[in-house]
């Protein structure tokens, strides 16, 4: 098993090197792409120490089979694409970024799409840096955003009551679709609990700007936020 694994990495590195030579120059402007990536950062991390957040981390995304992390919970749609053998090549990434819901209907990625080809190319050029030279990733600047609100360990440690969360969630589901579908209001289904708790507290202290969410979060106690996080994290 170990041998196969190493061989796979070696093969992927080779493919990467060849592809890099072919594409690295002409994909786009990675510096501008770093700015485009700000739009992705509330859900995705890339670079040193990147972890799965609301979305999976994006290190090594190029030429990775779709929905390939075992420690991340993908939508049915992406799991089906993996079964079909879909690979994240440049064309696939670009068309997905252009209109996520058309390419993979049922994705829980709440992003309306990046319409301009140049924007996509620059973004991909930026992401490519974290795929072409995996050995360089430790040197790359971490792009993980600093935590939005500093929460005490006690608040983060609260274990939410999913049953209470289910009742409270009925206030959320007037707008946020339970099945994770996205039509203009983001999906909140299956978010990691910590991300959920941090986001809600960020609204509560008005660090995030949306007035409806500030109002909704404003009257939730720490326990209620934890209960909602616990409920939505496990929602199928």
């Amino acid at each position: 098993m170990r041998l196969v694994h190493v061989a796979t990495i070696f093969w992927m590195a080779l493919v990467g090197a060849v592809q890099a030579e072919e594409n690295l120059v002409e994909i786009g402007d990675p510096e501008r792409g770093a700015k485009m990536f700000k739009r992705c950062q509330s859900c995705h991390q890339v670079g040193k120490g990147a972890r799965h957040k609301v979305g999976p981390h994006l290190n090594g995304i190029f030429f990775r089979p779709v929905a390939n992390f075992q420690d991340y919970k993908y939508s049915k749609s992406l799991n089906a694409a993996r079964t079909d053998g879909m690979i994240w090549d440049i064309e696939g990434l670009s068309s997905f970024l252009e209109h996520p819901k058309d390419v993979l209907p049922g994705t829980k990625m709440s992003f309306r799409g990046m319409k301009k080809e140049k924007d996509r190319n620059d973004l991909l050029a930026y992401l490519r840096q974290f795929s072409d030279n995996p050995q360089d990733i430790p040197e790359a600047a971490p792009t993980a955003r600093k935590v939005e609100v500093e929460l005490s360990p006690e608040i983060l440690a609260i274990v939410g009551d999913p049953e209470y969360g289910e009742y409270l969630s009925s206030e959320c589901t007037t707008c946020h679709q339970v099945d994770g579908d996205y039509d203009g209001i983001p999906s909140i289904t299956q978010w990691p609990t910590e991300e959920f708790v941090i986001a809600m507290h960020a609204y509560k202290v008005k660090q995030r700007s949306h007035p409806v969410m500030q109002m909704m979060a404003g009257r939730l106690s720490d326990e209620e936020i934890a209960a909602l996080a616990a409920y939505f994290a496990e929602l199928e």
Partner: protein
Amino acid sequence: MTLNRRTFIGAGAAAAATLSAPMVMGASHGKPRVVVIGGGAGGATAARYIAKGSKGAIDVTLVEPSRSYYTCFFSNLYIGGFRELSSIAHSYGTLAAKFGVNVVHDWAVGIDRDAKMVTLAGGAKLPYDRLVLSPGIDFVDGAVPGWDVSAQNKMPHAYKAGSQSELLKAQIEAMPQGGTFAMVAPPNPYRCPPGPYERVSMVAHVLKETNPTAKIIVADPKPKFSKMALFQEGWANHYEGMIDWVGSDFGGDNVEVNADDMTVSIDGEVTKVDVCNVIPAMKAGRICEMAGVTEGNWAPVIGHTMQSRLDENIHVLGDACSQGDMPKSGFSANSQAKVAAMAIRGALTGSKVFPAKFSNTCWSLIDTNDGVKVGATYEATDEKIAKVDGFISKTGEDADLRKATFEESVGWYAGITSDMFG
């Protein structure tokens, strides 16, 4: 009639506490039965949440005459050409197939509160342990002199969506160049407070494209209205000189219409018009009166549970009830339905009952990508449903924010309709 609020009375006090004591119905007739009358934002949501939450332990019957339900919310966007009528039509198939709701397409024509029995127009009788009334609105007879429902084909209200919306849209499109559209706006309280003014905006949007010299005149019995500053700013920006709003300070409350002559008299001044959209004063859907749960035009309820103040076995939701501070809106009805569903499940099966929470947001479209919103959160007190906190869009917001607000409203529509119909 004395009302025993049982275990719900303290619901506001203790956070997250389990307040219900099992009060399971006697075994004489097997499963407890809930009948829901009206399949809109209140009724459909209540039926779904009771059925879903009880997992088959409660027998839920939904009585709704229409097989295809047109949401009133977003029907103005249909009039403005932003939505197809079919996109606001919904059926009850999922409620029946996935959640086991027994959907009956018929009119409820009688309620015997002593026997706890609903009679349908087709003759069937439905016994209940709890009855949910969510019939929406009807119009107050004689509210606008010269207009009654027999005039609705000439002067449509279009305040129940569907064929009336189609008729009004067709009339607007058939207006002669430079013609006049009149609206008679309703007095408070009424369904969807910003609705008439969003409609004026949508009519202006259509006329600006196809009939730019046409005029819009609004006779309003009120001195001010919901989101007034936002609408008036938008009207000045997008439809300059087209809309003449006549509030009660200028005689807008002294109106008479004549459907045969197609004239509107405002404070004695008679105008010949091409389209006249009459939105009369409203009252609770007639079945509430028949059930004897109204006081005046509306059915008073207890905020903690949405139970009628006149019959503890009946819950009244949405536009038909009077509850306190919440506006009459689809969002409010959906929010109230969840509180009622929880209370009913608690009473009939002993499931947990949590303190009631309510919220509402109303989005309105003024012109393409120019959306605004107003919203608030609410809690139940012993007297009423009371406002906790709120917000409203500001005048002078930039175009990106207004566009985002509109896109959010489209997302909300998808959200609430999937929350209602499954």
